[in-house]
């Protein structure tokens, strides 16, 4: 009864692609490419591309799973397809996972701002500002959030890419731009694994998928793939510029390699001399986007878990979720702890979650074709795509 078709207006394919991309890109970009280089050295670039390939495959799996019952979020149809207990457990894991991702993101960004820009401001205030702003972004639902992201996120990404091109002027070692050929497999795999958190978060698609207009769903998938390809391209540029600037021996010693790189970008004579620092501040948009998408997903997953209509309860669920993230984030003392949480819990749980849940669901779906067909028929009959909300 709480199906997505009743939460109109829906989003377009491009909006879906933007929201899915915003759902993972901000996570870990400040550390990037420290984990890769620490483990894999110069081979790190292969590790990044391996991560990208794995993400393409996992994204494909998650879309295949969503296509089984396209008008219901995973949280809604999992109980009916995989049995109630399994559905409840998966729902709880999904919610906890979104919350943990949000907490780590808040702690990371606050730590960066506290250290580099707002050293006199209490951490809880920075966190509070982040939470209020992301709550406001998520408050008006998927369509509004998607439009805000289109207006803020895409220009920010374009500006960052241009700034990265400027950062190319500080490259010291062009020889390091060429990917090495004598690869050492184990360190590469280790680096690839440790760095994977930069792609974790795209699973917002399993909640978002039913909100795409029916006729735009294939297009939405293509935009999400396109966003992923663009992000791999941008991360490749980030990796190349940073390693050719700092070298593979120095990056592991740096706290925020990408932030340091951007802060090196100066435009002498321009009215904003420290241009790179300004762009870092603009990355707040990416963080807010990440947070807002997380809050939105968590609220909908909570509604699905408690079998309540998210149309009416969405905002009442959004508020406590925001407060919980804010309070837990305050309890995490610094970014080193959040880094530990990421490496110890988020990356392994994320990889298992992203790999096994779609595989399990698709397999059960193949075995229970009749149930899947019933679910599809039941959810498709309820509303005409594009009609106003009830």
């Amino acid at each position: 009864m709480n199906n997505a078709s009743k939460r109109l207006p829906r989003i377009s394919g491009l909006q879906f692609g933007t929201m899915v991309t915003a759902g993972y890109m901000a996570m870990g970009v400040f550390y990037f490419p420290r984990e890769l280089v620490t483990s894999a050295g110069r081979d790190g670039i292969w590790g990044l591309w391996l991560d990208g390939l794995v993400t393409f495959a996992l994204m494909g799996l998650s879309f295949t799973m969503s296509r089984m019952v396209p008008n219901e979020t995973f949280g809604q149809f999992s109980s009916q397809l995989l049995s109630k207990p399994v559905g409840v457990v998966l729902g709880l894991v999904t919610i906890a996972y979104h919350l943990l991702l949000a907490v780590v993101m808040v702690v990371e960004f606050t730590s960066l701002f506290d250290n580099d820009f707002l050293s006199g401001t209490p951490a809880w205030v920075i966190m509070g500002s982040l939470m209020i702003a992301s709550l406001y972004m998520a408050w008006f639902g998927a369509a509004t959030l998607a439009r805000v992201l289109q207006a803020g996120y895409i220009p920010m990404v374009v500006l960052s890419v241009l700034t990265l091109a400027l950062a190319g002027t500080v490259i010291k070692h062009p020889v390091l731009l060429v990917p090495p050929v004598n690869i050492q497999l184990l360190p590469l795999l280790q680096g690839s694994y440790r760095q994977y958190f930069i792609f974790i978060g795209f699973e917002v698609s399993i909640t978002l998928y039913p909100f795409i207009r029916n006729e735009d769903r294939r297009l939405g998938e293509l935009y999400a793939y396109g966003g992923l390809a663009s992000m791999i391209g941008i991360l490749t540029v980030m990796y190349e510029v940073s390693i050719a600037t700092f070298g593979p021996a120095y990056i592991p010693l740096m706290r925020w390699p990408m932030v340091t790189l951007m802060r090196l970008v100066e435009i002498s004579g321009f009215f904003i001399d420290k241009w790179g620092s300004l762009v870092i501040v603009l990355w707040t948009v990416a963080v807010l986007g990440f947070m807002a998408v997380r809050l939105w997903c968590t609220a909908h997953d909570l509604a699905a878990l408690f079998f309540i209509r998210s149309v009416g309860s969405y905002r009442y669920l959004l508020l406590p979720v925001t407060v919980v993230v804010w309070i837990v984030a305050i309890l995490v003392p610094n970014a080193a702890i959040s880094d530990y949480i990421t490496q110890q819990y988020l990356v392994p749980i994320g990889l298992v979650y992203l790999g096994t849940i779609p595989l399990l669901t698709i397999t059960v779906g193949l075995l229970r074709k009749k149930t899947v067909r019933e679910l599809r028929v039941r959810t498709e009959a309820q509303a005409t795509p594009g009609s106003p909300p009830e």
Partner: protein
Amino acid sequence: MTNLMRSVSRVLFAVLLLFSLSGCWDNRPVDERDMVFTLGLENGSPKAPLQMVFQFPTPSALIDYAAHKGISPKTSPVADVSGSGPTVAQCFNQGQAQVSRDLYLGQIQLVEVASDLKPDVFSRAVTDLTRIGTMDMTPFMFVTGQDLDSVMRAQTTQAQFPTLYYTSLFTCAHCQTDNLSIKLWQFAADANTPGVDPRLPYVSVDPSSQEIVIDRVALYRHLQFVTALSPTQTQDFGLLKGLANKVSVFIPQGQISLRDIHGQVHLQTVVANGRVQAKFRINLTSTLASTAAVTETPASNAAIASEVSKVLAQQCLSLLQYTQSKDVDPLGIGRMLDWQHPNTFLKFRRWHQEYPKVAMSVQVHLHVYKLGNIK
């Protein structure tokens, strides 16, 4: 919720957001801060091994600067305080205790280092400095063998503050014969990378004329100051490093003078029979300033280019051998070996023991691009 309530709540929300995002906690007016432009690092006492000098513009000089007024010869435009301790934090505390304003490290433009600074103290200071988040890693660095305070305070007629003289020079790559500028991040990266020794521009002030001279490069082994190259050696160093902007050379035979020598360098490392070879290939262009014979035939120009190429190659080779005699690898031959032949580099436990054994070769291809105004 009525429309009025909804409007009121939105306004309140906007106000809350405005206050929470405004950064009021960090708001310190400029006139309440002593903005440190230059940091000096030198040895302290055994109990407080690091001595730091914090130099900042005086309030009156800052006002004059903002009003585009000239330099007052009567009063110094800068003031400084110093502090000592085991780390930067303790030095800072002592410095802060001597001023009535907020001693602010977020605007540091320059870090000056005494040549006799002990390596362990230097290492800790660099690490500490790179951890000050409000300061990005872009200040320029240099080293001096003279009294640090006199070099920090050296006045010129070309800039309002001593710091501005140094930073405007180092910012302008083409204002130097060789681009010797080094920023904090570049120095820290070299200091932490195996197979390369860091370097810094070496600054001296003429005691009689008070003129600042920057035409030498200082070589370090790890963070131990080893030597400062002569101005001629520094020009050769610039050629080997690809930093040359407007180097000139004079060959007595034929009275050949070339200027504006600059170009690219390509370093390749080769391992043959277990022995490391470093091959420098330098492609240069230059302007012919004068010769004994007035000529401009292609053949004679090619002969001049060939002759000067040989001379420069020999000079560069001599410099490389000199660095080998000092066990200092400022050109990063070990680092390139690590990148091109990582397995070979890993075999060497101490690169400095291997560096003197490296077989060096230098090829210079000089192209006389312009002929100047001779006919």
